[in-house]
């Protein structure tokens, strides 16, 4: 039989001990390292991918014990995928979400309440308006990441060409109609008003402030058949008949057009500045000379409204690493690095903080556009009745809006059909 010498046995013992210790240390080190799954569309879109990847890299550098597994899912798919993943018991740790989808996910009861995770210091730094809308049954279910309210963008060059005062944008619907008539007459190839009239939940979110300024609330009992709603639908029909809007285009399709002076007024979010500048390569100074943004022209209610179209971050209750997830969420939404290199650079949006975390960032946020949004537009934000009825309701309401815009069916009939399809 093969026999080992005493020396060889000792060497083998020492080698196996070292190997065992090495494996044990590696395993324990791996056990300390946390991997977070982050479902988001920022990584799915070419325009924002470099920004989010840089921010994730920076976070991992600052937190070597946490690795982020970014899962890129398109904006239009993310709600469906997250609901299906929740149902199959396989949700990510953190997800980017927006609009009604946030509340749909909350309805599953599988979002971790953030109140227990957020420290009081961070809470005190947030502007209350940025998070109050995300409380469900008194619990905070989503953390505001970027704030992107909508305002009325106006192209000063187009206004000037139409003989209008470029520094005096319309303040009422009547003024808007007069201005659009002048624009249509002087520049027939320009779309006077860029408005999203597609049939999707986002379109209702975008059109909600216009319904509100007419005093309409289609979700209320009898609301779709109300006089206010009929007035709104009639106004939409008038816009289409006079060729003031280009129906069927998604809001994103108007952005490159306003960058080329092909749209006069655009009802869109704060992030438009970034899209326009990336299209026409304008400097900041030229941009502010060429474009302006103001509050929505008031309708019969006499009030201006806006909608908040920013993005939120949610943590799932099934996550085993909620503390690490919160650390990541906090970094994305409030760290100076993420604000500078993502929120401002790639989303061109506002932050949920009351004030900028540094003087350098304060200077970057001190622009005519950000100031208009912060001081004038954000206070007019109204939240649509998000929840399980919003998505099916939006199909019924926007189908009615499309019927008003594109057909000749009497408005009374359209209003009655919306009411019926809403099941009010």
């Amino acid at each position, binding site marked *: 039989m093969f026999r080992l010498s005493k020396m060889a046995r000792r060497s083998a013992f020492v080698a196996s001990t070292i190997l065992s210790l090495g494996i044990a240390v590696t395993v324990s080190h791996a056990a300390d390292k946390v991997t977070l799954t982050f479902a988001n569309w920022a990584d799915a879109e070419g325009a924002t991918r470099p920004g989010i990847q840089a921010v994730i890299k920076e976070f991992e550098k600052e937190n070597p014990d946490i690795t982020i597994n970014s899962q890129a899912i398109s904006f239009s798919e993310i709600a*469906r995928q997250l*609901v*299906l993943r929740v*149902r199959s018991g396989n949700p990510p740790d953190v997800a980017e979400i927006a609009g009604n989808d946030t509340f*749909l996910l909350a*309805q*599953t*009861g*599988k979002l971790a309440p953030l109140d227990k995770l957020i420290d009081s210091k961070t809470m005190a730094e947030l502007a209350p308006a940025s998070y109050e809308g995300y409380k469900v049954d008194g619990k905070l279910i989503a953390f505001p990441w970027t704030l992107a309210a909508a305002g009325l963008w106006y192209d000063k060059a187009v206004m000037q060409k139409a003989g209008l005062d470029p520094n005096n944008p319309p303040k009422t619907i009547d003024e808007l109609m007069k201005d659009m008539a002048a624009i249509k007459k002087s520049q027939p*190839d320009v*779309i006077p008003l860029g408005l999203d009239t*597609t*049939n*999707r*939940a986002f379109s209702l979110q975008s059109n909600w402030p216009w319904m509100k300024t007419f005093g309409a609330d289609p979700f209320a009992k009898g609301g779709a058949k109300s006089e206010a709603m009929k007035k709104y639908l009639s106004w939409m029909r008038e816009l289409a008949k006079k*060729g003031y809007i*280009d*129906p*069927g285009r998604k809001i994103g399709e108007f952005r490159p057009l306003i960058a080329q002076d*092909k749209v006069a007024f655009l009802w869109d979010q704060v992030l438009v500045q970034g899209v326009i500048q990336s299209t026409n390569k304008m400097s900041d100074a030229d941009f502010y000379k060429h474009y302006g943004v103001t509050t929505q022209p008031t309708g019969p209610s006499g009030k201006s409204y806006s909608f908040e179209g920013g993005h939120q971050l949610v943590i799932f209750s099934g996550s085993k690493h909620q503390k690490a997830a919160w650390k990541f969420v906090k970094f994305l939404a409030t760290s100076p690095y993420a604000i500078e290199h993502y929120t401002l650079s790639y989303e061109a949006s506002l932050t949920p903080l009351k004030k900028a975390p540094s003087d350098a960032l304060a200077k970057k946020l001190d622009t005519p556009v950000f100031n208009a949004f912060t001081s004038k537009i954000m206070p007019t934000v109204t939240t649509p009745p998000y929840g*399980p009825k919003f*998505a*099916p309701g939006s*199909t019924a309401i*926007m*189908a*009615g809006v*499309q*019927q008003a*815009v*594109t*057909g000749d*069916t009497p408005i009374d009939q359209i209003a009655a*059909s919306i009411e*019926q*399809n809403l099941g009010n």
Partner: protein
Amino acid sequence: MSATTLDQPVKPAPARKNAERAPWIDWMVLPTVVVLAVVIGYPVVYTLVLSATKYNMLDMVPPRYIGGGNYQHLFTDPIFWTSLRNTALYTFGSVIASSLLGLTLALLTESLTGWRFRSVRALLLTPWAVPFVVVAFLFRYMYLQNGGVINAVLLDLGLIDKPVLWLNNSYLALPAIMVANIWAMMPFFFLLLSAALAAIPNEVIESARIDKAGTWSMVFQIKLPFLRSALFISSLLMIISNFNDFAKIWAMTQGGPGYSTTTLVVYVYRLAFENFNFGYASAIGVVWLILLLIFALVYLRAVRVQV
């Protein structure tokens, strides 16, 4: 030697007397049956079960049995009936138009030979090679009110005085999508009918010529009867395919404006994946399945008759 007349059907050859029957061979189909049961059987049965329940995926509660409640709702749901009407118009309109177009082109190019035939065939088959989503976006941009090539050409020719809202007019949107669909589907019919035309025996054509058959009688009396079975089977296949067409409609109008281009597949998609109402969506899915089964049975029967 006994002569077999054309009237007498040819009997199949009898099995060899000493051919051995091995029963275990029958069991070889078992894996296929299991796979089909899992991949097709289970979803169909589960859809049937779901169609009798109230089930919203967001509620995180199990489906609740409501019997025929969803089917009852279906009969009073105006959107369902609009979708069904649109599906029928879209499917039959597209198939009839593209088959006629394919047939006409096949007949027109029949006499071409050599490089001419190859070039024309390659040109006519190009739309078939374009993915449906690309077709949809291509036509969507062509139809645009501002900047669309179709309106630009019509305006330049003086045929219209203002741009037409092709996809944003309740009456024009469905026909406009059908035009895109016909353009994409026509090569399928062209290809099949060209092959069927080539298979017509030369003797038949020659004898018709000797009998001095004119162009129209040659087409209607001689060629069309030979093409009937190819036309019938290809149309049935395309009816089934168009019944399920989602990509073009979704990419071009998302079922709008209003519900003017909402077909069953679009409606089911909205119910299931936007509203997460799987119970009602399943009920519509069952009706849809029954309609498709009818077409599939007709198709199978037609194929059997041909064989």
